[in-house]
């Protein structure tokens, strides 16, 4: 039924040429130095955009007219126009940018400089770095609270989530998590921040008021070695009921009931799943699979992977535009 409706919609989309109504998925390819643009209806690559070297972190600007891409080996942010699908600008990033987060107000971009033990603050209007915040060794994950007041950065070798006050740009607290934290994601209500620990094999849920770990979620997949369970990407549904965690070389995405923190299911996806994105209607989950060079598409209603789409070499980040 759903499939038929989708097929019908797709046909309609083609027939009346309303490309704006279809989702567009953007995938950064760490190895091929490109962004794959995937049509959400046909689930095929419609364009490949050449960007700087080793693109990983990828995000939209506030009105989704631009994409910002961390080009790590070129020490810059590339700016892509989402209509023309061309690189239209470059911005400074500090050394070796890997991941970043845009403040909800849309002007300041907070960038983790993996090589520099720093978080750089970029003013996207002035295209200038306006501040640097010293953090732990190998800063990586970046999350920002819905009210924009609290920034959380994780540092891989220090194994901490650093809580940063965005008004003063000062570290106000440090929460120890398991080894090699990668991604920090706030819940929609801002009460918790979820932090994945790649080598620790866990996700820590931190209460943002007390700044204490209230729950540590562990994973176990039958037939998969403990060492292969390496949580990285995290997404939560808008209603805050379900969370999805990419488990790296375990080739699974864990689905978690947010109320009980119980793992409900492990979805088999491509090899070395890095990051995740939900479609705007939350009917699909997209995953980047760094070793199999594809993107898995999980149908959220059926709880099944319905397609894998070949993209570029070593796909890493993924974002979706309605």
């Amino acid at each position, binding site marked *: 039924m759903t499939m038929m409706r989708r097929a019908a919609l797709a046909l309609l989309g083609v027939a009346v040429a309303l490309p704006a109504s279809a989702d567009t998925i953007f995938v950064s390819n760490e190895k091929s130095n490109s962004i794959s643009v995937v049509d959400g209806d046909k689930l095929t690559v419609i364009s490949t955009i050449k960007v700087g070297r080793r693109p990983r972190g990828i995000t939209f600007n506030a009105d989704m007219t631009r994409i910002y891409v961390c080009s790590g080996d070129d020490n810059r942010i590339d700016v892509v126009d989402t209509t023309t699908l061309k690189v239209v600008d470059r911005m400074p990033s500090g050394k070796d940018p890997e991941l970043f987060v845009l403040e909800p107000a849309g002007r300041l971009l907070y960038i983790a400089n993996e090589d520099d*033990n720093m978080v750089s603050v970029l003013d996207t209007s002035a295209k200038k770095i306006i501040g640097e915040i010293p953090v732990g060794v190998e800063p990586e994950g970046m999350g920002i609270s819905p009210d924009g007041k609290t920034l959380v950065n994780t540092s891989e070798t220090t194994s901490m989530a650093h809580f940063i006050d965005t008004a003063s740009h000062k570290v106000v607290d*440090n929460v120890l998590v398991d*080894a090699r934290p990668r991604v920090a994601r706030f819940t929609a209500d801002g009460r918790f921040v979820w932090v994945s620990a790649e080598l620790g094999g866990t996700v820590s849920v931190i209460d943002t008021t007390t700044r204490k770990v209230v729950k540590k979620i562990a994973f176990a997949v039958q037939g998969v070695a403990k060492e292969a369970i390496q949580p990285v990407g995290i997404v939560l549904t808008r209603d805050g009921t379900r969370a999805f965690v990419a488990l790296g070389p375990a080739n699974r995405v864990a689905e978690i009931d947010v109320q009980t923190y119980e793992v409900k299911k492990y979805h088999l996806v491509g090899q070395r799943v890095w990051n995740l994105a939900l479609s705007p209607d939350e009917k699909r989950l997209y995953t980047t699979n760094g070793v199999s060079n594809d993107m898995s598409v999980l149908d959220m209603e059926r709880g099944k992977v319905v397609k894998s789409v070949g993209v570029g070499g070593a796909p890493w980040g993924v974002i979706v535009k309605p």
Partner: protein
Amino acid sequence: MVEPAVHTLRFVARLLLLAGALLGASTAWAADPQVIRIGYLTREEEPRIPLTFLEPVSDDEGVQGARLGIADNTTTGRFLGQSFELVESVVPADGRVEDAVRELTGQGIRLLVADLRADALLAAAAAPEARGMLIFNTRAPDDDLRNERCRANVLHVTPSRRMLADALAQYLAQRRWTTWMLIVGRAPEDAAYADALRRAAKRFGAKIAEEKTWTFEDTNRRVDTGHVTIQTEIPPFTQGREHDVLVVADEADQFGEYLPYHTWSPRPVAGTHGMVPTAWSRVHEQWGATQFHNRFERQAGRWMRPRDYTAWMAVRAVGEAATRTRSNDPAALAAFIKGPDFTLAAFKGQGLSFREWDGQLRQPVLLAGPRTLVSVSPQPGFLHQFSELDTLGDDRPESRCRK
């Protein structure tokens, strides 16, 4: 910048420490800083002269890794009110390591990074003052140190020869290059490496079709038209029964470098030369290693060598324990490091921990080509009921360690 004076570097290391302390003092959490002191013990020796000209002759292998470990620990420590100090001790060539251990104990050192060869390591571990110490072996790959001669107060950070040989044998098995020619140098360590290779061949189903001992004179690496001699000597020397791969045991680095492209049959070379199983190599850039190389090269002015890497791991193991336990009590740190909750992140794509039966750090082993990374072992398909990392080296049932 290739060979900076050691003293200058020590000074820089101190400055870094000072900077770390200042940063720590300026944060709100460093009210009452805990100091964690780690000893570093090595022996004065002639610098190693590599056969290749591409590698610098360095007199600070090992200690540079330990210093970087201190800098990394300090960055983390400043958020927790912990600071780290490295107390470096160099035993004269004719000196006794036991005396150095006594002196370090006098300075309150209970956690010691030992950049020593096997006999000196055992002497250090046997010193009466070492009884309450935890010693990290960051250099000696000898298998008997993990078996018949194992000690309760020693953890082995550096992989054993058997781990290296198993890592190589798994890869060769995966490629189905299962018939080997083995060439062994005359140094005792070459014989030990060859023993590990023979054991690995048996474990992973390879056959050593022919074995030869290198008997030519050791030559100076810098000889005009030296290649003419090499080109004359090596092809007939490597003639023999049919084999898929030529495996070389030349830890002393006397001839192995000459084998590739000179072999009688067109065969790849692996072992101590050619494709090398190793704890660390500059060609490895996965799992965040890029940033680690950059930090090291900024500090040391040269590439990181395996001895630097293992010293870094030892210092980081102490740092990780201090972070997790929030303690500076050496006994508490040692207990945590040996315990079940310890995990070390060391740019190998998975957490590392110490084997309880022999104190060996279980770790993936790189297979490094001269210019790029070839692979990382354990290879897929070599399964283990507990940890696939335990397919490398002495597993629990095989261990002869009775601590």
